[in-house]
């Protein structure tokens, strides 16, 4: 079998890349090792608005949307609540299984071939260059030839490693467990909640993402250690009256790489995209949107490169330039904020929360960010200086 482009992994990155490559005239094969695209989900399912996706040319159908997000509600270690609320939706809760399937269906409609329960087990090389992929499909092994491989295999990132890309930054990851829960009352069904503190989730945070109909994704991420994320999550749920008696209808587990993008995302005949490229926001752990965005660029550049008969690293570098232009500044900002948050003690988080408590945070930061700083200066001069230095990038 021979293809122009083989895409490994049918997550949002892979399906988007496969669709766009096929739309641009390439003969595409999309591989997914699982028997079902999108399941089990490894995701909190919070995504930007449909308008944001429309900017990428992706029209989200209503069947994949579960709920509207209108803001965020933060709880400091001491329990001080800070709300950041808008008067319009700032995001949506997706039904991720449906979303991933919807993207794969679009790839199929564009002409991409899809195989499930088809695992890429190696890259085939000729003269040192990638010339194909070895596949195990329902236990049967065979080779397919291809001009370009798009690695969209998520956090496992085997393809990038086989291709010799340095994927070290992916090992800086949070360890997450989430329960999708039903039969729970939420304080505000349109706010996403975050809980901070070394007792709740050391080095990370707990979250409650409401999906509507008295259901929510209740999860937690930590930096790993003696006590597991699973144990912390059970403790967290036990401590919340509104969750304690809820039913767990799904367990979702996974790693989120928060070390920023990998060093290089292209090599001869290969493009890495999505989680495997470190395209995930280091603060929020959100990666769906970036996966789609970068997947689209990958598909387009790959198809053009095939048409031009030049699939060298130099030609594919257009992809790296374009994704960097689109999201690198954001990822770098995320890395800075992450390192600040990580270093803040419980007392410092409480001090910051006290300053913001009860305020119209959106307006405050838009119109008068200095008052936040002045207030904080009064309460905790040490913290203020630390934040100033860290956020301005003076200190690593």
């Amino acid at each position, binding site marked *: 079998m021979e293809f122009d482009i083989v895409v490994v992994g049918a997550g949002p990155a892979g399906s988007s890349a496969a669709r766009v490559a096929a739309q641009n005239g390439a003969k595409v094969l999309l591989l997914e090792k699982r*028997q079902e695209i999108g399941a089990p989900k490894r995701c909190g399912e919070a995504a930007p608005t449909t308008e944001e996706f429309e900017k990428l040319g992706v029209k989200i159908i209503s069947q994949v949307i579960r709920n509207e997000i209108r803001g965020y509600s933060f709880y400091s270690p001491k329990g001080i609540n800070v709300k950041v609320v808008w008067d319009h939706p700032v995001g949506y809760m997706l039904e991720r299984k449906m979303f991933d399937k919807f993207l794969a269906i679009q790839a199929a409609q564009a002409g991409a071939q899809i195989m499930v329960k088809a695992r890429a087990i190696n890259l085939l090389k000729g003269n040192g260059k990638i010339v194909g992929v070895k596949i195990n499909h329902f236990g049967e092994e065979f080779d397919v030839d291809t001009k370009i491989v798009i690695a969209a295999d998520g*956090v496992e990132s085997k393809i990038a490693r086989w291709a010799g890309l340095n994927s070290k930054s992916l*090992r800086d990851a949070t*360890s997450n467990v989430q329960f999708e829960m039903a039969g729970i009352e939420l304080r505000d069904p349109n706010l996403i909640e975050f809980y901070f503190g070394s007792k709740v989730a050391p080095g990370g945070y707990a979250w409650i993402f409401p999906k509507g109909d008295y259901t929510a994704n209740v999860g937690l991420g930590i930096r790993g250690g003696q006590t597991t*994320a699973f144990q912390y999550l059970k403790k967290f749920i036990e401590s919340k009256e509104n969750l304690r008696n809820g039913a767990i209808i799904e367990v979702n*587990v*996974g*790693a989120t790489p928060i070390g920023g993008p990998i060093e290089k995302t292209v090599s001869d005949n290969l493009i890495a995209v999505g989680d495997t490229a470190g395209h995930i926001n280091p603060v929020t752990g959100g990666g769906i949107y970036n996966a789609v965005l970068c997947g689209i660029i990958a598909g387009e550049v790959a198809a053009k490169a095939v048409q031009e008969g030049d699939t060298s690293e130099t030609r594919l570098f257009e992809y790296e330039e374009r994704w960097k232009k689109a999201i690198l500044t954001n990822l770098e900002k995320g890395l800075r904020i992450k390192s600040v948050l990580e270093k803040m003690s419980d007392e410092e988080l409480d001090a910051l929360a006290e300053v913001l408590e009860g305020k119209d945070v959106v307006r405050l930061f838009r119109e008068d960010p200095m008052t936040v700083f002045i207030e904080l200066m009064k309460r905790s001069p040490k913290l203020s200086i630390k934040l100033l230095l860290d956020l301005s990038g003076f200190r690593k």
Partner: protein
Amino acid sequence: MIQINRELCTYCGGCVCVCPTGALELIETYVEVDNEKCNNCGICSGFCPMGAIKLDRTEAK
């Protein structure tokens, strides 16, 4: 040698992500260990969100 409790494992692939030697592979619903490559560093065991990986140091070396 690492031991993976398949009953507890949710095949999330997190261990594969953090493994520095590429010794692990997720075969859809179970993790396979390449004992040639595994150097018993224990990173996967400390990372596993479910606590499904135990490091058996007695067999190291």
